[in-house]
Structures are given as C-alpha cells and as structure tokens.
C-alpha cells in the first residue's frame, strides 16, 4: 500500500488543475496513465500527499495537421498504434510504441507524455520527443506556453515545469521516415540504449538522438559518409549507470545502436 496519506483529485478544467498543482507545489504529482508513477509511490520512493488525475480533462486526441501533429497528454501507446495517420506522418512513434514493455495492459494505459514528464533516463519517450524536436505545450498560472524538448528535459527525473504547470500536449512536425533501435535484455526489459534517426532539416543531413545513455537525451548530427560510431562515442561524455547496465557498457554500445537505427532508416528509404 502507498504509505503516504494521499489525497486524490480529479479536476475538470485546465485552470482548476493548475490551481491544485500550485496550491500543493512540492507535494503533488500528475497522473497520466500511472504505470510508472504508482509503483514508485508504492515502493515509497516518492513521498507526496496529492495526486492530480488528468482524466477529467480529455487530452486524449491525436490531431494530424497539414504541417504539424499534436499529441494530447493522455494519449496512450495503444492510441498511437491504432492511428493510421501516425504510421504515415510520424512513423517513429508507432515504431517505438510497439516495443514498449509490459504487454497490451501497459500499452492501453501508459501515456507517452506521462513517461516524458517523469524523465527517467532508462525510458523511451524523452529521447523520442527530443528526436522529433517536439514543443511541449505547458499550461500554468500564466496561461499556455511552449517549451522545446531540448529545454524541457533538464536532468534525470527533472523537467522544466514550474509550480502549477503541467503538459497538455506535444507538438511536432511531420516526418515520413524514421529509424529506431532499442537495446534491452529481453522482451520485458526497460531500454539500455535507444537511438532514433530522422532527417535533420536544419543541415540537410541526419540526426540521431540517443536515449537512456545519459541523464538527458543526446543528439548527434551527421551525414551519410560520416564515421557515425566514432562521432557518437565522442559525444557520450557522462553515460548513465543503473541496475540494467553500467555506464561503460552504455558508452560502448551507443555507437553501434546509432548505426543500427541508421541502417533501419536507410532500409525504410530504399
């Protein structure tokens, strides 16, 4: 049983949600799907007195526009897998979603943005939103603002949200191709290293985003002829260590993980 005397809140508006988060700042968490949050609370690794459930706000839509795509805060991995438009216009998302561990039970409950907001290094979504160059839409006491993924993931288990703020959606540009590779021990394991490859519009080349390898995602821009493994190895300066793998192992396999993701990208283009 969760050991703190928890208060459960289910607000019905953005402003009411923000007010609750501000009122209990430092002693409150937002529940998206709850699949990562509740085990942490049950293990007494997180001591809070209030949880705010977003279920009353909707926020479960995927809107595919002409240029950009908006993903609501309560969109689940299964929602992504069921959305035909994402397969065409954001193929990285269903590619990642189908490899998320825990079975259909988790796919139907876990939310992409909830996972991103916890920003546990050994998870998929921080790297994926960074790869997509997503803008996180944040609602708070001052209204709505946008934060780029690069600025959102500030440290392990820390994101750029102030008191009273929460993420309502993520917005990112369409992309028609992607490559992805996840290294993990088994079908039911969390990732040790992930690599997402997309075309880099700013350089005309490519960008690989390494997830789970450092405290926050790491982006490396490259061209087809570049020595990708060497570039990635040089970029990994502070590899993450946890019960799945030591830092030295993550540093050693980051380059080959990036190469495999690029190989998949190239296979998708041929």
């Amino acid at each position, binding site marked *: 049983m969760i050991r703190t005397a928890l*208060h459960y809140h*289910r607000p019905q508006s953005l402003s009411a949600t923000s007010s609750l988060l501000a009122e209990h700042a430092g002693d409150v968490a937002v529940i998206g799907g*709850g699949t990562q949050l*509740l085990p942490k609370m*049950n293990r007494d690794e997180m001591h809070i007195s209030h949880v705010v459930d977003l279920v009353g706000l909707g926020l479960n839509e995927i809107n595919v526009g002409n240029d950009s795509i908006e993903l609501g805060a309560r969109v689940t991995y299964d929602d992504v897998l069921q959305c035909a438009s994402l397969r065409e216009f954001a193929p990285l998302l269903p590619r990642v979603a189908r490899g998320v561990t*825990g079975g259909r*039970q988790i796919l139907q409950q876990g939310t992409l943005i909830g996972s991103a907001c916890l920003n546990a290094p050994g998870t998929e979504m921080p790297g994926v939103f960074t790869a997509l160059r997503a803008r996180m839409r944040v609602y708070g006491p001052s209204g709505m603002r946008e934060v780029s993924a690069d600025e959102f993931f500030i440290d392990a288990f820390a994101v750029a949200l102030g008191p009273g703020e929460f993420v309502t959606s993520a917005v990112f540009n369409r992309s028609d191709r992607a490559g992805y590779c996840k290294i993990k021990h088994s079908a039911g394991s969390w990732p040790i290293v992930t690599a997402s490859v997309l075309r880099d519009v700013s350089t005309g080349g490519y960008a690989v985003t390494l997830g789970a390898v450092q405290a926050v995602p790491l982006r490396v821009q490259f061209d087809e002829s570049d020595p990708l493994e060497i570039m990635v190895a040089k970029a990994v300066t502070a590899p993450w260590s946890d019960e799945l793998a030591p830092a030295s192992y993550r540093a050693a396999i980051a380059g080959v993980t990036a190469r495999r993701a690029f190989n998949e990208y190239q296979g998708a283009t041929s």
Partner: protein
Amino acid sequence: MTIDADGTYIDQPESLAPGRTLTLTVNGKRHRTQIEDRQLLVEVIRNNLGLTGTHVGCYNGDCGACTLRIDGRITKSCLVLAASAEGADIVTIEGYSTDGLDALQQALWDNDAFQCGFCVPGHLFALSDLLDRNPDPTEEEVREALIGNLCRCTGYMNLVAATCDAAVRRSGSRVEPAPMQTMLSAPPPHPYL
C-alpha cells in the same frame, strides 16, 4: 485488531487517511465500499471486496497476475488508484466465466498449461483478450500477447499450445480436447532462444 475503553473489539479502526465512498460494478454486481485514496484497485478488489482470485505478484506492472478487465480493457490493477476507477465496470477471475470452464480454461487444463496456478487469472484475461481480437492467432502472436504476464513454472510452451488449441475449440471445428498433445510431441521452435 484493537479494543476500546469499554472492552469492545474494533476490527477495522477508522482510518485517518483521506478517503471516499467508491462505487464499482464488479462481475455484474454493484458495490459501494469505503476506501482510502491511497489504495490501489487490486487492494480494494482483494481486501475490501474479498475477491482474492486476483493475485499480486510484483506491484510493479511486470507480472500481470493482477490483470482485470475494466470497462472492456485488460488492465493491471496494481497500476490503478482505486479512486480513479469510480463507476467502472470490472470483471475479475471470479466472474470470468459464469457457466463452468470456458474453452480457453478447458484448453489450459487439458494442455497442462500451468503448474502452481498463481499466474493463471492474469493469463486468462490476456489470452481471452487476444482471442476476442484475433480468433486464429499464430504462435508468435500468442507469445506477443503474453509479454505482459509472467509465469515462473511452465516456460510458456504449453500456454502457447493451449491457446492455439482454444482458438480451434472456440471456432467450433473441434469439440473434443486433445490432452497432453504438447508434452508428447516435439516442442515448437522457440523464437527467443
């Protein structure tokens, strides 16, 4: 248990933790029960309602033994705050089949698909969810449907065989079970070895 000043036994001291009255429909019956906000759904199902067929293996979303069907979706009930399930329509293993063993349960029995049985409630929900969506799954699809459920006894081979057997039984093309088929024939190739 505590005893108050006049010698009265108090079985359930009043909790000081925040709580509420929760209304659920479980196996077709409406329940109203007093909960604490910090209670997980699996704790309410087992401790408040006494439906102990739902098991707790890990409290981490890994083992799947606490899987229920909530509003039609299979869900690991250790990952749900009970308060968030207000008004939900829930099926537990006690309400899984109302008319004896169904085809899947019978196939698990006939194929020796479990030993200790601790994981079976969760497996049944995961596998029936698969067969409802896909009446004729391949072996690989059965294995994928089992990713969220752990069994430490059987090694899954007989679970896979039983599910394929159940698919045939549910299609009506064979009524009689084929007991011990898997154990007597060569095991199928294992894709994860």
